[in-house]
């Protein structure tokens, strides 16, 4: 019996301007079987979302050039097609967590916590 209609290769959009962090997170998530897609700022992320299938999860940095995480989140919420995608915010600004997100993880990011949180929002297709 199918208990969850999620895909068995959940798609995750990683929005992070730091190349090192972005590459590392994408590599980590791909290694764990997720289809991770990188974006360098909020605008790149919106461009991707407007032309690609809706991802299962967005991992979002806050402080980015061009379009930051707060601006991106405002735009995302305005769009009914995108508004329900869960968002995990990553930030070093522990005093600037004034953002509507499903989870907030403080940098440096504990990989174990990140993967546990990701798996919560990206449950793979299971059979009972």
């Amino acid at each position: 019996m199918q208990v969850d209609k999620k895909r068995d290769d959940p798609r995750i959009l990683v929005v992070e301007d730091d190349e090192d962090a972005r590459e590392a997170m994408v590599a980590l998530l791909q290694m764990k079987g997720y289809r991770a897609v990188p974006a360098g700022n909020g605008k790149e992320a919106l461009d991707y979302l407007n032309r690609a299938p809706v991802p299962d999860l967005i991992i979002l940095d806050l402080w980015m050039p061009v379009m930051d995480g707060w601006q991106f989140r405002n735009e995302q919420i305005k769009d009914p097609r995108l508004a329900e995608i869960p968002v995990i915010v990553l930030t070093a600004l522990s005093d600037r967590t004034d953002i509507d997100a499903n989870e907030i993880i403080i940098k440096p990011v504990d990989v174990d916590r990140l993967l546990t949180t990701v798996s919560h929002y990206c449950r793979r297709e299971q059979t009972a």
Partner: protein
Amino acid sequence: MNPDDHRNAQVRREIEALEHREAQAMLRADTSTLQTLWADELLVNSTANLIAGKQILLEMVKNGRLKLRIYERRLVRITTFGEMVIATGNEVSQLIGNTAEYKMFVSYMNVWAKRRGNWRLVARHVGIIEREKPVPLQ
């Protein structure tokens, strides 16, 4: 040289050799050696601002997700505290990513501790000094 100085000098030589061996193992993706040199409780805080433990790091090296073309380590200072040693220095590395190669200059601090009579890497912190512009893969 008093006995303490003699012992510290010996420890420094051992750690220098281990630092070199660990760097070579990283470069060659030699997970068997890394498995031996890394303590089970190893924690690494990387330049990517990710804190990772031994198993996930070994998995990344083994699966080619942490692949290096260049990895050079220069020890600057070793400080001993009995059964614990702090090694600090700098590194030049060139990481082969999904779409590009990244050359980085970093400072690092490695903490070695005795585990059942053997030195094991228990903690590592890496800070970026400079990063070159990524070179797209051909």
